[in-house]
């Protein structure tokens, strides 16, 4: 009786000691795992977390997607509004992506205006969507020079467990793919645009792509899809965006120097991942 309770409490003690060690010496804790060729959550270096995408569940939005990448949960909604186009681009609509990392998703974010991290993510997502040309802005034109659609693509993070960029990009694409716009007619006499509630047509996307993020530790260990525990300990973070035809859209790297071989290896892995995600 007493011996079994001793073993039970010692198992609980060990877990508590491991947790305290993780809090006090995170880098050493991670290095111990890396030495065994495994990561704290049980994945190998190359393994990706399970991804689930749920599309079209929000009725107030014109398009929506909910993405869960492991524990990282991001909700994205698309709202369409009508605006006057810019004078030098009279046939182009607007695509406005934004991501918000509110205090709800992690203890390290405090309530208030967008933090640096959120601003950087928003900017990178904007660049990714623009650089890929995923949505032809002229397809959003209602009447040249007078009325165009503006698509506000807003992501909100509900649970932040690392790698928000990949999840947010996936959510934005999912939401855009599920977006339908009502048929709009511009009345030249009154200058007003009215929409029909009955007919809706989907938004035309030109290509499909996926992003893969990696973290590099000690210049030789490349971990894909870092969690919130691993992310701040990485020396270098690397993100590769590849489309479903295997073409490279963008590569971003920050934090330090990496070898060309590492970069090529990551690009190849990203291509495999894009094919994987296609299904």
């Amino acid at each position, binding site marked *: 009786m007493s011996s079994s309770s001793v073993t039970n409490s010692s198992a609980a003690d060990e877990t508590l000691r491991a947790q305290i060690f993780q809090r006090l010496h995170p880098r050493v804790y991670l290095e111990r795992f890396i030495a065994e060729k495994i990561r704290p959550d049980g994945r190998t270096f190359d393994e990706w977390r399970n991804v689930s995408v749920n599309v079209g569940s929000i009725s*107030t*939005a014109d398009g929506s997607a909910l993405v869960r990448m492991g524990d990282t949960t991001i909700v994205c*909604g698309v709202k369409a*509004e009508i605006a*006057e186009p810019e004078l030098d681009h009279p046939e182009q609509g607007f695509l406005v992506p934004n991501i918000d990392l509110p205090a*709800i998703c992690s203890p390290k974010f405090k309530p208030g205006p967008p933090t640096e991290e959120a601003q950087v993510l928003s900017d990178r997502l904007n660049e990714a969507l623009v650089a890929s040309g995923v949505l032809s802005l002229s397809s959003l034109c209602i009447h040249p020079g007078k009325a165009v659609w503006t698509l506000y693509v*807003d992501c909100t993070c509900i649970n932040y467990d690392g790698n928000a960029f990949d999840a947010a990009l996936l959510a934005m694409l999912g939401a855009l793919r599920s977006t339908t716009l009502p048929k709009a007619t511009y009345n030249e006499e009154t200058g007003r645009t*009215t*929409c029909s*509630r009955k007919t809706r047509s989907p938004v035309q996307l030109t290509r499909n792509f996926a992003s893969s993020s990696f973290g590099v530790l000690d210049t030789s260990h490349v971990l894909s899809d870092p969690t919130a525990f691993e992310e701040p300990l990485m020396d270098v973070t690397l993100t590769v965006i590849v489309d479903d035809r295997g073409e490279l859209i963008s590569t971003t790297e920050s934090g330090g120097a990496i070898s060309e071989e590492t970069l090529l290896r990551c690009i190849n892995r990203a291509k495999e991942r894009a094919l994987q995600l296609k299904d």
Partner: protein
Amino acid sequence: MAQSGNDRRRINGPEESFPPVFDDEDDDDFKLRSQRKRGPGDIRPIFLQPGLISQANGSAYIETEKTKIACAVYGPRQSKTTTYSEKGRLNVEVKFAPFSCTRRRAPMRDAEDRSIGVSIHQAIVSSIRLELFPKSTIDVFITIIENDGIEGCIASGSLAASTALADAGIEMLGLVASCSAAIVGDGIQLDPTEAEARASSGTVILACMPALDSITSIWQSGQMSADLSLKCMEQCYERCNDIHSVVAQSLLEHRKTD
């Protein structure tokens, strides 16, 4: 939303944009849709899932047809202010996702967010044993993912907050259940949607602790006679007992699967 302003911290769109205006050709269709499909005493089915947000101490996600709310509790943690307080502080912050309402909301917090925060604060503060956490703050963050009526938001938000607090293991006197009602003509309809609340002449939101047989908050707005408002409160109170068992059941199931 008319003005996106020059918010330098976000990607900006055009200076002014207007939500689409629909022509009224299918007005009949719309009227049919806003007719109530359930009885006047029936509330919408509640789906409540605790423990959704792994980063938080406690969390809950609630979904009732078209209202979706996520709630996270962080705490007790250190108070930012240096003034000593014998009792802990409860801080409730509500945020609407930009795509949650029919008209896009600016990401900035405005008066509506704060007033909902105050309502939920009042509903749950008396159930928490704050005297056990001096100098600490309990932060409750609520994100409204889809909004179908402010009354529904406040009621569901209070439920989610109470569940999240229980999930975080914070000592409470009891679970808080909350229900809303609207006066339409001479009749009372429980749990109104946005369309129903707009068509009504007044609404009542009641929050209570059925375990202790006590009421924590009542918000009444609009025009109604005193008798009618008392009847509303009684009906809400009865319904809260059922809601309480739903919340308790979901917490038990969550613990069993842990």
